[in-house]
């Protein structure tokens, strides 16, 4: 592998990884609060379509991002309402959200298929830093969504492990009854984190339609929402590890795309399988890990909390 090729793949890895990183970080928050959100794929699609539509309408990338976030949050609100207030099964509700998201976006987005988004996320080269060999190209010539994720990961890690609201977040996911007794409103916080998680899935989706692809295609997430859910398992609900997983995924994805572009003799179908097989591998390997056994799943994940039924 030539150095130039390696740099190209690394650049692709950051971009591809970022589209997963945002939804995955959002899922970390939702799952830490005890709500499994399998609707990420649908929420990403909502973000991708609405970001794109508003972008086409207004040519304003920031309005487009906002629309993407709001659209994804609407779907997240439905998920929150059904699972938190009505205590519906979280797995099936999440699936419903994904089905709804893909159906709705395919239905509404039909007339928009194909055109390129007019206003794209700008690439900003950070003065000074961007001239550093390798790192300048890979890390400091990126777009705002990437930079924001660089800040978001340490911020989230600090929030989860070092602040009182972060402690409460962990508490409602581990032992909601205890948190409730301590005066923490379990239901309200779960709503909050599911909504934030949805918003971040929306960012990931818009990143696809406004930067990565950049256009609207039916089902364009191609399983990235599910991959994000998988990465959360791999990342043991830890922002840093999730970030590492997202970039690792991005690297595999960038690598196979590069190989295709270079006209590899391996059929593209097999190369396209690589990212999915990679996720199966990392989820399988990490499930048996010591760390997983020690930290494990948030105890109350998937279980609705209802004060009257407290045990």
């Amino acid at each position, binding site marked *: 592998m030539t150095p130039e090729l390696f740099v190209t793949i690394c650049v692709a890895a950051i971009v591809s990884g970022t589209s997963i990183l945002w939804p995955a970080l959002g899922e970390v928050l939702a799952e830490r609060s005890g709500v499994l959100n*399998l609707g990420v794929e649908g929420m990403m699609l909502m973000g991708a379509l609405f970001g794109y539509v508003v972008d086409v309408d207004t040519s304003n990338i920031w309005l487009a991002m906002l629309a993407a976030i709001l659209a994804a949050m609407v779907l997240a609100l*439905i998920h929150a*309402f*059904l699972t938190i207030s*009505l*205590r*519906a*099964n979280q*797995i*099936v*509700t999440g*699936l*419903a*959200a994904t*089905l*709804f*998201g*893909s*159906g*709705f976006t*395919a*239905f*509404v987005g*039909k007339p928009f298929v194909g055109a390129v988004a007019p206003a794209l996320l700008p690439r900003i080269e950070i003065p000074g830093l961007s001239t550093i060999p390798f790192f300048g190209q890979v890390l400091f010539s990126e777009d705002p969504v990437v930079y924001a994720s660089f800040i978001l990961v340490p911020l989230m890690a600090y929030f989860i492990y070092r602040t009182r609201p972060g402690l409460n977040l962990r508490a409602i996911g581990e032992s909601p009854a205890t948190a409730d007794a301590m005066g923490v409103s379990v239901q309200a916080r779960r709503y909050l984190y599911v909504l934030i998680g949805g918003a971040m899935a929306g960012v990931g989706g818009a990143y696809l339609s406004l930067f990565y692809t950049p256009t609207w295609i*039916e089902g364009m997430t*191609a*399983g990235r929402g*599910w*991959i994000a*859910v*998988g990465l959360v*398992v791999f990342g043991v609900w830890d922002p840093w590890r999730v970030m590492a997983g997202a970039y690792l995924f991005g690297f595999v994805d960038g690598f196979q795309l590069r190989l295709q572009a270079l006209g590899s003799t391996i*059929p593209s*179908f*097999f190369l*396209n*399988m690589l990212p*999915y*097989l990679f*996720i*199966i591998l990392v*989820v*399988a390997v990490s*499930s*048996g890990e010591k760390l997983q056994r020690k930290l494990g799943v948030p105890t109350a994940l998937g279980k*609705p909390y209802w004060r009257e*039924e407290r045990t």
Partner: protein
Amino acid sequence: MRAPLITLERRTDLSLGRRAGILALAVVAGLLFGALLIWLTGYDPVKAYTAIFGGSFGGGYALSQMLAASIPLATIALGTAVAFRVRIWNIGGEGQFYMGAFAATGVELAGAAGRWPGFLLIPAMIASGFVMGALWAAFPGWLRAYFGVNEIITTLMLNYVAILWVNYLVYGPWKDPAGHNFPFSPRFPGSATFPRLWEGQLHAGLFVPILAAIVFVFVLSRTQWGYELRVIGENPTAAHYAGINIRRNIMLAMLVSGGMAGIAGMVQVSGVVHVLSGQISTNYGYTAIIVAWLGQLHPMAILVVSMLFGALVNGGFAVSQVGIPQALGFLLQGIILFFVLGMGDLLSRYRVVVGRREPLVASTPPEAAPSMTA
């Protein structure tokens, strides 16, 4: 404190009829909400529903198409229900469906070359479809049973892999040389296809889900395995202490559900499309999950619900003929599931009481529809 006039009381019992009524109500509410959404997005809801209804129920041809679409749904959903009963979330029906179709096509290609007669070829194709679907599900099942690996993720990822694999075949080695470069396998000979039963696409594969449902009912109510399935579904802890081998049951459930999806794939290529391609499924694997859930994991209910969803899938084709995107069928499925989850759960949990009749003392712990809230 005075009792309020209208209160919500916990339900502790729920008859089968009432449950069916609630589901029907939720479906109707979902369709009404869907109409609102269609109208808001600038299409004509009356036109849409007329097309769906007419395309699935208006006459013999429509009924035949609707039933044909419900065959893969019912077949996959019956298997999915087995897995869901032991709380294994096999979301890989779509991939297992494709792998079953792939294996059946492989046998067909070999068998057609050897000029096998239909009575030999068809059973061989069914068997290969079952085995391949089961194998495709066995890997995530094994990971889940022995290493605790989340099966939702693994089964889902394998869907994409399976579809890519089938696409590789039909764009490459299995492409029909006489097919004008379309990504299809060669057309199946008559000996590899199910006979059509009626006008339209209804074919003899209709008996597959019906037969499977009867076997399923028998297994559930009359066999030890069925008993174990029920115990694990109701209370995994009790099942564990009763000495039921959970790992074995997880593997079995995955094999059966994967195998059923594989058979569905075989039935689809052999009964409807007669070629292998990357487009043999209209998201049947995902829709079947809803069907299994709405059917409350009960075989006979699944058969009924699969017809409703067959109508929606088929309705998707019908509305696309009148200028409304086909995805409407898919959208309506999502909405209906939302309403069943929300309204269905709410109504089956509480009843509206006007004026209080008795003191509010919970005598027994509230119970929702069995195993639907875990």
